[in-house]
């Protein structure tokens, strides 16, 4: 019998802000939910994040940002991911992101944006339900 391959998730902190409480909690809860989780640590450039996603061969990338720089950094990350052919990687995000910015960010290909107060189970369930099936 073949055991199912674990979902690999990269939790990344783009930008200069250091509010990592949420990112770490999400990382830990996805790990507890049975996924393999890599956490980048703070202050990652879009280039570094995409490079790590590529090297680690992840299925999912979760971006956490609370500085307000999402409108600058998320488009860059999505563009670099496309450039590296990471189109089958599912991207979600969380942090302090105003409601009115969400449609624009989703248009970039970010699958979901989780605001403060989201239960961790909801994020895990979302990942399980939306992870791209790879052969």
């Amino acid at each position, binding site marked *: 019998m073949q055991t199912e391959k674990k979902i690999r998730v990269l939790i990344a902190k783009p930008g*200069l802000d250091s509010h990592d*409480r949420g990112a770490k909690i999400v990382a830990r809860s996805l790990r507890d939910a049975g996924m393999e989780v890599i956490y980048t640590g703070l202050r990652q450039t879009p280039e570094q994040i995409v490079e790590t996603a590529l090297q680690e061969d992840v299925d999912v990338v979760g971006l956490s940002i609370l*500085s307000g720089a999402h409108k*600058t950094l998320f488009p860059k990350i999505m563009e670099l991911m496309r450039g590296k052919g990471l189109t089958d990687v599912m991207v979600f995000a969380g942090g302090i992101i105003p409601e009115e910015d969400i449609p624009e960010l989703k248009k970039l290909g970010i699958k979901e944006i989780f605001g403060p*107060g989201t239960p961790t189970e909801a994020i895990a369930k979302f990942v399980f339900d939306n992870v791209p099936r790879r052969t």
Partner: protein
Amino acid sequence: MSDKEKNSSIKEELQRWEKTTLPRWMRQRPERKNEFRNHSGMLIKRVYTPEDIKDLDYMLDLGFPGEYPFTRGVHATMYRGRLWTMRMFSGYGTAGQTNQRFKYLLKEGETGLSIAFDYPTITGYDSDHPFAEGEVGICGVAVASLKDMEVLLDGIPLDKVTTSMTINGPAAMLLAMYVAVGDKQGVPREKIGGTTQNDMLKEYFAQKLCIFPPKPSLKLVTDITEYCTRHLPKWNPISISGYHIREAGSNAVQELAFTLYDGIAYVESVLKRGLKVDDFAPRLSFFFASHNNLFEEIAKFRAARRLWAKIMKERFHAKSPRSMWMRMHVQTSGCTLTSQQPLNNITRTTIEALAAVLGGTQSLHTNSFDEALCLPTEEAVRVALRTQQIMAHESGAADTTDPLAGSYYVEALTNEMEKQAMEYIQKIDDMGGAIAAIEKGFFQKEIADSAYKYQRETDEKKRIIVGVNEYKTGEKALIPILRIDPKVEKEQVSRLQKLRRERDNGKVEKVLEKLHYMAEKDENLMPIIINAVRAYATLGEICGVLRKVYGEHKELIII
């Protein structure tokens, strides 16, 4: 009847009550939970009696306000004499915009300034550095050179207003700019008053905005403290901060213990520099969070003062009572705010502010109701300031000193806070001190575990958060959001580049070379940094020199 006899009769009466009255009520009206605990995990009793504080010695443990051990407050007259300083942390966009906000707040009755810098400034990068893209003026004000500081403080008399600066890695540079503006205003240095946060140790495990590794950072903290002790007698060189420890997820006991331990490390470091404890300790100040458990927080503030007084007296043999007093600034807890039903945050902030006032703070920042969504709008910040004014003038909370002293519950909690914090302090001593504990990841692990536990409890509804896991409306928050115009970054960058073209670049080069030389020689860098900012060397340039000499900090990742 003697006190002892009285207590033993209370004990007997309590046992009788537990056998007779209580069981009936427990059947008819059982308790809501099997056990009640506060955030620190302390078991909260059903009822507190004199039995719980039978060992309390009034003079030894509480004393009078303004006297050792300062449990009841650092000033004899407390708020009857002077209300706490209402200091609203603010900063956004350009120096000019924030200057307008400062003037607005002063006009509305604020009594001290508190500068929030943007991330590039906090992390020692100029506004035109590639890392700064998208971050300029967003979470605070951009200050890349003395030029920006001049605009930021324009028209604000530095001999009359005190200013707190939330700045750590580049604290020396921002303080140097502040001093330089004071000089230009013609204010004598001994009249310049304010605070630099300058608490680098907590950066490694809580706020995590580090530039250099721990040891050179501690050296810079010590440089600033030494310089202020000698030249800026009204400046508080360090604001030893628990706020970020708490916001990163610690509980109240951990916040208290880790903060006080950082304080111990700074005192040790400055003593090694050859200063006498009573020369600098009176100007050390503290900064705590006020979370949402009212009595736990009040007990924490009271225990903090008593414990610090004991540490200064017994561990460091301070003689002056002022070395033993803990003055504190408090900020209500940002992490208790919710983006759901944001007006509820006004109530949360009020409760937290009440804890700070009943706990005897010297200075208070109240968060604005929109801060789980954005930086505060003018309306939101006004409500936050008014919350303090209502508390000060309408509630009666400021009419007597330490009103909860003698409460069986509050005194028992205060004792327990102190006891548990002391256990942590001994543990860190055994580890070899604060830097050793950071390098081992001890603080980081403790905080991450508490943060995760708090989240689990919320997810499992063991903790009810109104509007988040109960009493939800499903409606999206409809409040105005403060937006920073992307033009801010462009304008700031072009101003900075203009400065680089127009200043005397030969002079800048020379002063930076000298800084490099002195940093390698391990001298106190404050005077040369003041010279550098005066020559309009930028923040990024000065930090760049020190990055070369000291190297950069690498995060120890613990989840």
